[in-house]
């Protein structure tokens, strides 16, 4: 328990440290949060009259943002599906980012729903057992259950996986795999339930259509991964240095790894390794003897380069004492992928796959490193336990590779095509056979009787969505610059389409045919901005804690 508290304390203190960019970002977000809080305080005193909502349009930007964010939360866990069902290793570490995004998005959802309530002090009426919970009749009660359950699931999964990483312990499958699968099902359910909130209302023909649920999911699975693509690039950039790498003098001088002091490895070294890597004890004596052939122990000083990226050698390394940092150069930026300590390996990727080195390894402290040949590693891995631990460790690294971004791009591409197709379906159904049911659509697309506040918004959304779809289908969007443009178009297009294009037209005209438009007030907008800032703040802080853990910087072994 005290370990866990120490872990939490370290995480908390890490989140308060950063460079000036970090402080600017966090500070600006906090200021926006406080402004939003003040705006909400005004709303609590004055009532919802201070918003632009009315009896005619009784839900506004709060619920619009809520709807969009539920989709984001659901889609963030979409990343989980390729990893755990299709065993796509490229996205493995990104699962955590997806789930952290889901946590932040759900917190924003809960905040938006709370500020929309007329009597937030009566929230306890919703608690089953204490209040009166109208389950399973009311879809809103379903929403309460699934959203809170989803939050708890994701917090648990992320917390467990990160804590295990912190402890440098392999997580126990039974303590997280079932929950991951539950999270996948839950992710689909939160957004379907939110769609059913609208679909179940027979008195609102604009919503009472079976295509609304699939449209929700398609648009969510477009905007969510698009946001993750952008967020991952920010993380990649922020966890690298923008300036040229300041190389220690000794690294500048050191040209080849073999110039580092080395000696032949002995059985003793293997025993030393076994102290930190117990699986070595399972290796038979003959295998050990065989792998000691050609094995050396390097005595590295801080700054010594043990591996160079793109070099063609393929030895595998195990750290006996000290620490080694593993980093990659990507597009002019250098990023740390891992931080390895005693018992941990590096360089095994090239040893196993024969590819050029994917990273550079530099000793951070005076270290002794066991260097074995690729054959030796393969021999070691004949022992099942060694195979398991080495393979697992190989997967446990923070690699936000371009390939993972391209996989996400594929998800966004397909989802956007489906989204646009479903929209086309709706438009055909409503307009080919013109009946009274299309009146809300006509208001949205063309305006009605002088009321046309939403027309420019919706056409912008259509342009952005179709444009993004086309862009994503072109090979041009494989380049990160254009991919980012497409992602921004997706997010904004879907934010407008889902928010203004779905929630508001359901109320215009009213069931009695009255045409009253809706315009959010300044106060309402400030509350929305405040909640978005709060969500981004949560996400930033969660990432600020998670990335060092995933990189191996913030681990038990580095406790002061």
């Amino acid at each position: 328990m005290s370990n866990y508290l120490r872990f939490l304390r370290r995480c908390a203190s890490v989140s308060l440290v950063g460079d000036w960019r970090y402080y600017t970002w966090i500070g600006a977000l906090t200021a926006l949060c406080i402004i939003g809080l003040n705006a909400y305080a005004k709303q609590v005193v004055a009532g919802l009259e201070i918003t632009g909502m009315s009896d005619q349009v009784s839900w506004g930007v709060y619920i619009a943002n809520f709807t969009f964010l539920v989709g984001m939360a659901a889609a963030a866990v979409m990343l989980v599906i390729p990893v755990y069902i299709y065993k796509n290793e490229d996205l493995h570490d990104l699962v955590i980012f997806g789930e952290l995004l889901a946590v932040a998005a759900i917190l924003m959802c809960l905040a938006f729903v709370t500020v929309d309530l007329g009597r937030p002090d009566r929230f306890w009426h919703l608690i089953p057992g204490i209040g009166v919970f109208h389950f399973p009749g009311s879809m809103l009660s379903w929403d309460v259950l699934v959203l809170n359950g989803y939050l708890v699931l994701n917090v648990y999964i992320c917390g467990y996986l990160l804590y295990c990483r912190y402890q440098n312990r392999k997580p126990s499958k039974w303590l997280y795999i079932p929950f991951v699968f539950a999270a996948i099902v839950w992710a689909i359910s939160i957004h379907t339930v939110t769609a059913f909130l609208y679909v179940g209302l027979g008195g609102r023909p604009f919503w009472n259509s079976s295509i609304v649920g699939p449209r929700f999911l398609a648009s969510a699975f477009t905007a969510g991964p698009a946001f993750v693509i952008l967020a991952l690039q920010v993380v990649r950039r922020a966890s690298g240095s923008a300036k040229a790498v300041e190389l220690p003098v000794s690294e500048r001088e050191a040209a080849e790894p073999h110039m580092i002091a080395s000696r032949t490895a002995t059985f003793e070294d293997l025993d030393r390794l076994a102290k930190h890597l117990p699986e070595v004890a399972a290796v038979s004596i003959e295998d050990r003897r065989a792998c000691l052939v050609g094995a050396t122990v390097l005595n590295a000083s801080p700054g010594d380069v043990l591996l160079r990226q793109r070099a063609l050698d393929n030895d595998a390394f195990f750290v006996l004492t000290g620490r080694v940092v593993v980093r990659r150069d990507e597009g002019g930026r250098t990023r740390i992928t891992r931080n390895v300590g005693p018992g941990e390996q590096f360089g095994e990727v090239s040893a196993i796959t024969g590819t050029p080195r994917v990273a550079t390894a530099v000793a951070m402290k005076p270290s002794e490193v066991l260097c074995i040949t690729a054959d030796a590693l393969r021999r070691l891995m004949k022992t099942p336990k060694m195979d398991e631990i080495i393979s697992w460790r190989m997967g446990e690294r923070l690699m936000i590779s371009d390939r993972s971004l391209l996989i996400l791009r594929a998800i966004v591409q397909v989802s956007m095509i489906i989204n646009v197709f479903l929209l086309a379906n709706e438009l055909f159904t409503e307009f080919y056979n013109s009946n009274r049911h299309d009146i809300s659509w006509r208001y949205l697309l063309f305006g009605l009787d002088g009321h046309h506040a939403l027309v420019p918004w919706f056409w912008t959304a259509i342009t952005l969505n179709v444009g993004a779809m086309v862009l994503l289908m072109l090979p041009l969007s494989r380049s990160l610059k254009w991919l980012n443009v497409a992602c921004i178009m997706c997010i904004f297009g879907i934010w407008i389409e889902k928010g203004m294009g779905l929630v508001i037209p359901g109320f215009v005209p009213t069931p009695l045919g009255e045409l009253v438009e809706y315009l959010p007030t300044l106060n309402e907008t400030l509350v929305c901005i405040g909640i978005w800032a709060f969500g981004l703040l949560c996400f930033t802080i969660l990432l600020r804690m998670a990335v060092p853990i995933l990189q191996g910087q913030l681990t038990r072994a580095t406790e002061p």
Partner: protein
Amino acid sequence: MPFDTEEDGMSRRSFLRTSTVLSAGVAAVAAGLAPLRKLGEFTSVDQFLQKYYKELTPQEMKTVLERIETEVQRQYGVRPHVRDYKPMNGVEYVYALNLTRCVGCRKCVHACVAENNQSRNPEIQYIRVLKMPNDGTFDMDKGDHNYAPKSVPEPGFFFMPVQCHQCKNPPCVKVCPVKATWQEPDGITVIDYNWCIGCRYCEAACPYFARRFNFASPSIPSEQLNTNMSYLGNRPRYKGVVEKCHFCIQRSRVGRYPACVEVCPTGSRKFGNILDPKSEVSYILKNKRVLVLKAELGTLPRFFYYFDI
């Protein structure tokens, strides 16, 4: 360790620096929450902890009613009688409205406002009268809500008032997450104003635009306050809760006609017990051509529009 590049947190100096920012932040938060000082009579402990209507014992209900009377007296300066009228046995209310006779004078709208203590500012009116063209359509999109001619009725139009239909299959009851609205045995769909959380899902669900929400604290001129109040009916509501027509529970459950029925100058409004074969509503449903609005939605309203022949 001389070489410790793990970032771990901060030194004391940087902690002090960050704590300055943090305290400034806390000051900003405190000042930001300052408007809450004006919260005043938002809620009391008793109100906050009040149980669900259906779970209140008669003794607890008595306490609640007394508390409400005191609250109203404090706000309006006059002590009302608030009673919890229970439904009568063997009674199911039905409303009928004669579209041949309605002239669109809107007296019903304002009688309801006066009888049921509805907020004047912001304005809440349970009844909405539509001016519909006489061109062979019942399409409510063609209804005019804001007609203001010199004299009604106008040739070429008929008038159709709409209020809560107390549906047999109410969509609003189905969607309420806390069951703050439910249908009573005598057919009236009621709201417990102390239980409603103000999510407005019921307002979105109603196909007849029958429900109203208190976007601000309701304001009623004290001299126009109707002191004959019922718990589920016309006691003054709170900011942030939903309300709607309840067939004047304080009247109908003691055997009287609702205010809108009494005030109608042309006798277009009919109300009574459908389980009584001798009531006028039984006669109407048996002998007149009646229709309900949006029958295709399956709400089964208890509000019938009829014509004279």
